[in-house]
């Protein structure tokens, strides 16, 4: 599968999706002007990946901020990973949050209530 490696900006996140090295990461800030067009390639890639996933997928989410519209797309991404879980493969979401950013931790906890995926919360400092 092709590798997706998008460099982030002030408004858009870094995205790394690489099946061969087992690297899956979403990091930085997500408030793109046009959320659906930014995430279209990402969602398509995950669709393709879900058809033939690794036995264990570790998805790192290390965002500083995401806006409301992004929150919906992140849910869509998580729902796709949930399907992989339903098909008998293991998926772990590593949810990173800054020690001063309780909001991010709580957002992760809200997500884990909605989707049936294991969440690991990882705290970091500057």
């Amino acid at each position, binding site marked *: 599968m092709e590798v997706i490696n998008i460099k982030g900006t002030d408004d858009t996140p870094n995205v790394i999706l690489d099946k061969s090295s087992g690297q899956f990461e979403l990091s930085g800030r997500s408030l793109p002007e046009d959320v659906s067009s930014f995430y279209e390639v990402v969602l398509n890639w995950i669709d393709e990946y879900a058809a033939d996933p690794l036995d264990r997928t570790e998805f790192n989410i290390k965002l500083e901020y995401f806006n409301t519209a992004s929150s919906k797309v992140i849910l869509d991404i998580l729902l796709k990973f949930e399907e992989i879980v339903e098909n008998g493969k293991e998926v772990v979401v590593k949810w990173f949050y800054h020690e001063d950013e309780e909001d991010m931790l709580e*957002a992760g906890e809200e997500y884990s209530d*909605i989707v049936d995926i294991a969440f690991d919360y990882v705290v970091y400092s500057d």
Partner: protein
Amino acid sequence: MSEEILKALMQLFGLITKQDGGVESSETEYVRSFLKQQLSTEVVEEYFGLFLKHSAEASKKEEGEESGKVKLTSMKDSVKILGICKRINKQLNREQKIVVLIRLYELISTDMKITDQRMAIIDTVADVFKIPKEEVEAVEVFVLKNDKEHFNTPDFMLINDEDQGKVENKYIQTSGLDGTIIILRIKSADLYFMRYTGDHEIFMNGLLISNKRVYSFPKGSFIRIPKGKPIYYTDVAGHYLSDGNLAKITYEVKDVLYRFKNGAIGIRNINLAEEQGRLIGVMGASGAGKTTLLNVLSGIEKPSEGEVLINGLNLHTQKDELEGVIGLIPQDDLLIEELTVFENLYYNA
């Protein structure tokens, strides 16, 4: 509305109003009066408390931040909203989802504090509910706009004093009405909503209409205005039905007379002409001839004189060409219980 949906709505109301500076008194008032319409007085406070809890939460923390900077929606709130929508998504049918969307817009219309954050939340709700973009836009225009130029799509209909003959709007002219009654039709859910912009006292189904609220306009409704004829549901629906490529139907009864076998005259001198989309009532004392009239008008009995025409075709002599066009459902004791309404109609047609 079920308890769960109402609870979800209170949470959504709370989370939306707390964005950008927090709840305004007009919004609090709106939520309270909304609850009063849905519930008995004892339980209103319970739900209202839920709203207050969600609108107030976390605002303490935000106060600490430097002012002047645009406050971003808390990520926890964003995800929480998603969770609430997901939870009620399965329990709500299409009509109820549209109603929820309308109420959310109505809430922010009370103080017109229309900010990006608030709109983003409503967009996300609509997105989770999978409401088509055009319908979301139509609802937004319907609830938030007042200028006539916004209402020039086929979804809208205007009822007011002006002669609008040259514009494409659907409209009904009613002389002497202050302001405009705006009707919105949501095609996919086959729902109608109305709001009124003027200062006259107008009534829908006997209830006084407030010009600050949006009302659903269900089947069988009518609006009474100070001057002129009432506006009936069928008047409104008729304008929308005549849209598009549906074949138009005319129904004409000319000088019909019906004589029973014993020679007595059952009905006489019947003349009427109508088009599609009309609902018509026939009143008369017992034995006046209502059943006889319907038997003749539906093609069961042949008139002794005169004719019944559908799009110019004679119902009694050109039956084959009108097959499936006309139907009659007699009094309810003749409905077949095992069949659905559709099947009953189909069988009788």
